[in-house]
């Protein structure tokens, strides 16, 4: 299995690389944004990163290519905006805190680092998890292999990053 991890000049990318390599027992190629069209990868992972999804237009063709995509934080917001969803400021922000979320039939503590959130949902997307206030914590496309997490499975504050990746792998048809 080959994984392409697109790095949006983030500071958690290598944490994600370690988590992915350990879970999928796969080679992870880390490529800076904008990623070139890489032919034979089995999974594209869009890293977290600074700013707003509109700053990252180069992902559009990759999201329409049919390849499985996992988006983390900004990566999830990029997925959502691609299908017409909107991203807005989150009053107060949540930075560096672990909070419980129900994910894949289990409640676990996950790390949150975000100033923005998915305010409205894009077409064809469904919410997989939300926080106590109804903020989107995980979403996926109803028919395509696309999934996103608002939280950070790669953080040391997240209880079980492997559980999050297992859910993503099932949803993307990789397990």
């Amino acid at each position, binding site marked *: 299995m080959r994984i392409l991890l697109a790095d949006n000049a983030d*500071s958690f990318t290598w944490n994600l690389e*370690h988590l992915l390599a350990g879970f999928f027992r796969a080679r992870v190629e880390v490529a800076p944004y904008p990623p070139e069209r890489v032919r034979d990868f089995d999974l594209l992972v869009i890293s977290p990163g600074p700013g707003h999804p509109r700053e990252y237009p180069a992902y559009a063709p990759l999201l329409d290519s049919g390849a499985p995509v996992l988006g983390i934080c900004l990566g999830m917001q990029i997925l959502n905006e691609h299908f017409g969803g909107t991203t807005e400021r989150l009053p107060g922000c949540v930075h560096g805190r672990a909070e419980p979320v129900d994910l894949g039939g289990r409640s676990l503590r996950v790390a949150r680092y975000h100033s923005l959130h998915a305010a409205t949902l894009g077409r064809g997307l469904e919410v997989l998890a939300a926080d106590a206030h109804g903020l989107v914590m995980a979403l996926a496309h109803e028919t395509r292999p696309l999934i996103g997490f608002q939280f950070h499975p790669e953080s040391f504050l997240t209880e079980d990053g492997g559980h999050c990746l297992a859910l993503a792998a099932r949803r993307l048809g990789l397990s």
Partner: protein
Amino acid sequence: MPLPRAASACLDRQAFAGLAARLARDLDADLLLSGAGWPGEEACLAGLGPLAEHVPNPRDPKPGLRAFLAAHPGPALGFLTYPLGLDLRGVPSAKPRALPPGLFRKYAALVSWRHSDGRLDILGADPGLTRELARLAAAPPPLPAWNPPPKAPAAASLDRDGYMRAVEQTLEHIRDGDAYQCTMSIRFGRDFPARLGPDLLLRLWLRRPAPFMAWFRHGPLALLSVSPERFLRLDGGRALSQPIKGTASCLEDDPALAAALRASPKEDAELSMIVDLMRNDLSQNCAPGSVRVDRHKAVFRVDRLLQMHSDVSGALRPGRDGADLLLDAFPPGSVTGCPKRRALEIMERLEPHCRDIFCGCFAVLRENGDLDSSVAIRTALLDARSDRLDFFAGSGIVVDSRPELEYEETVAKADNFLRLEDL
């Protein structure tokens, strides 16, 4: 290749302080000193008689640094400046720089002193120089009496209003999702007789020791550092970083205050962000599955301050070395912010001054590939041409920071650093 041992002696702390100050003042020694009384005490080092110097190339620093380390015997002592970090991370900066990007030196002789038993070793192959050092070590000159220079007003690169405006703009960037955390600093300048620099450092080393202290000369300039924070250590293939976030003033050990520091949600979140950032910076060159966090939110006291930190460690990937570890993780995440590159861009735009050595690092690069390094905070730049001392202070800005409190904290840090009267 190690330097041969030429002589040994036994000195108490007071005697070593006198010797080290003399070496720095009259023999142009560079010093990397470990302060007493913290869990990670290391040997104190003085390098004398520079054999070779190396300035890292900002475009591609690793090959040149590796070649320099291999070409000469003994460890290298030196520093990397913050603007080199901007170059390495691709952040443009047109501000005038007082220093080269970094500087490492190899020496004809090295003096090493151990806290645990006072053992002093003189290493080197230059008989004239090692004999002179042995003679000085046999009867170390006392540290001169301390006559603090008169209080001098400090000029600041940002006044209260300017600093608060910069913090407010930083907060807007944070609310926009550009960063979770940034640091905002002020550069201060005041009159100070440069010749007193070594005495000041050794006075601090005796009375208000910090874990990582440094004295480094470059032409008419000298760098003086009293840092509490380890950046990176590499020891037999195991990398360790000990980022600090969260401080509280305290004159003596106070378990209640330490507990309050650990319980603060703001300090907890700040430290957690930097732990994840340092995990990332180690993971780039460490083997998957090897990176771990230990002693999360441990508290230690240094120079009347409680400091909260964590241990982040990992095992180097095959084929990687100290140059990879140090330069890929530079500048230190605890003093940049997160995500690092965007935080650097924001700070570069909002700070009117160049940080120069501030938020860079001091390092010893050993001949076996190991290294140790500090984060250059509580660090000053002395200019012998103008008898001027430039020093810096800053604070971490997060979403719930209040500009006036951050300003007060920054000024308090600067005042504390320059309390010279009671040494």
